[in-house]
């Protein structure tokens, strides 16, 4: 079930009359007039609800000699809600693209010829800049404080602030003046 189908079905089910129609159809297939009598609603109202249910894929119709019969689409209701929630959102890819575009924009704004022009004040932008600098450090390797300072100085003169911020952002760790990049 797609996200759109799930939304359409849940919207359709959020009505007591439609829920009662489905409960009736769960017992047996029925036609409009029978449902109207059973649920004390006009046939026109029942037809209105049947159209909504059919559009949401909850019921199907078939013709007999005298009536149009409606039956419950049982397979639709066998789907687990957890499966619907667990499905990757259609929005996810679009959101990832937007995030990547924003990230590049920040990098282009704050870096020039590989050097940091200024340290961003806004935390979100500073994080992106620090992650970019962190790429200069190999994973799984340790560095002395002197080595760290030299590497950071390639990007910006204020290596102390950047070193401290990388630690507080969790991009690097330190113990006994030995540094390493966080996995």
């Amino acid at each position, binding site marked *: 079930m797609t996200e759109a189908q799930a939304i359409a079905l849940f919207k359709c089910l959020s*009505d*007591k009359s439609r829920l009662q129609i489905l409960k009736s159809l769960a017992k047996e297939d029925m036609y409009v007039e029978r449902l109207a009598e059973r649920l004390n609603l006009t046939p*026109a*109202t029942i*037809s*209105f*609800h049947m*159209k*909504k249910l059919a559009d949401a894929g909850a019921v199907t119709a078939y013709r007999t000699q005298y009536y149009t019969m409606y039956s419950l689409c049982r397979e639709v209701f066998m789907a687990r809600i957890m499966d619907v929630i667990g499905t990757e959102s259609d929005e996810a890819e679009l959101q990832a693209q937007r995030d990547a575009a924003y990230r590049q924009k920040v990098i282009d704004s704050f870096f020039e010829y590989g050097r940091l022009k200024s340290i961003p004040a806004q935390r979100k932008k500073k994080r992106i800049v620090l992650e970019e600098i962190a790429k200069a450090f190999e994973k799984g390797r340790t560095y002395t404080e002197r080595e760290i300072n030299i590497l950071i100085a390639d990007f910006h003169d204020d290596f102390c602030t950047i070193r401290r911020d990388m630690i507080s952002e969790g991009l690097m760790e330190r113990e006994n003046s030995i540094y390493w990049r966080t996995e």
Partner: protein
Amino acid sequence: MNENWVEVMNHYFMQKKAACEKQRQRCRADLRDDEAVFAQIRGNVYDAFAAVFSAALRQGAKDEEKARQFFLDKLAQIPRNWQTALDQARQHGDDTRALLEQIKLETAQEIETMFRSVTEVETP
């Protein structure tokens, strides 16, 4: 003609509007939002024609026949748009819109039947 036809009609409109509002609230409370809308539409039609009835009485202030005819003319004229909308909705397979227009037309028809019975005018 019922001598108290003005009073009877006013009472009729008041009762019907109150019943529709009660129905609307009951449906909302019962999580039947679509049917609440249907009740509201019916109530709106009663409300609209109650206003037209008041206008008819003002038009024919000293002339009952003038007032009656004014109201009958409006009962014929106003639903014409709804009929057109119903025909278009059916043409385009818009079942929802068709049902809403049908509700308005049925309510207008009921008002006309009531008015004619109270004023003892034969339905054409």
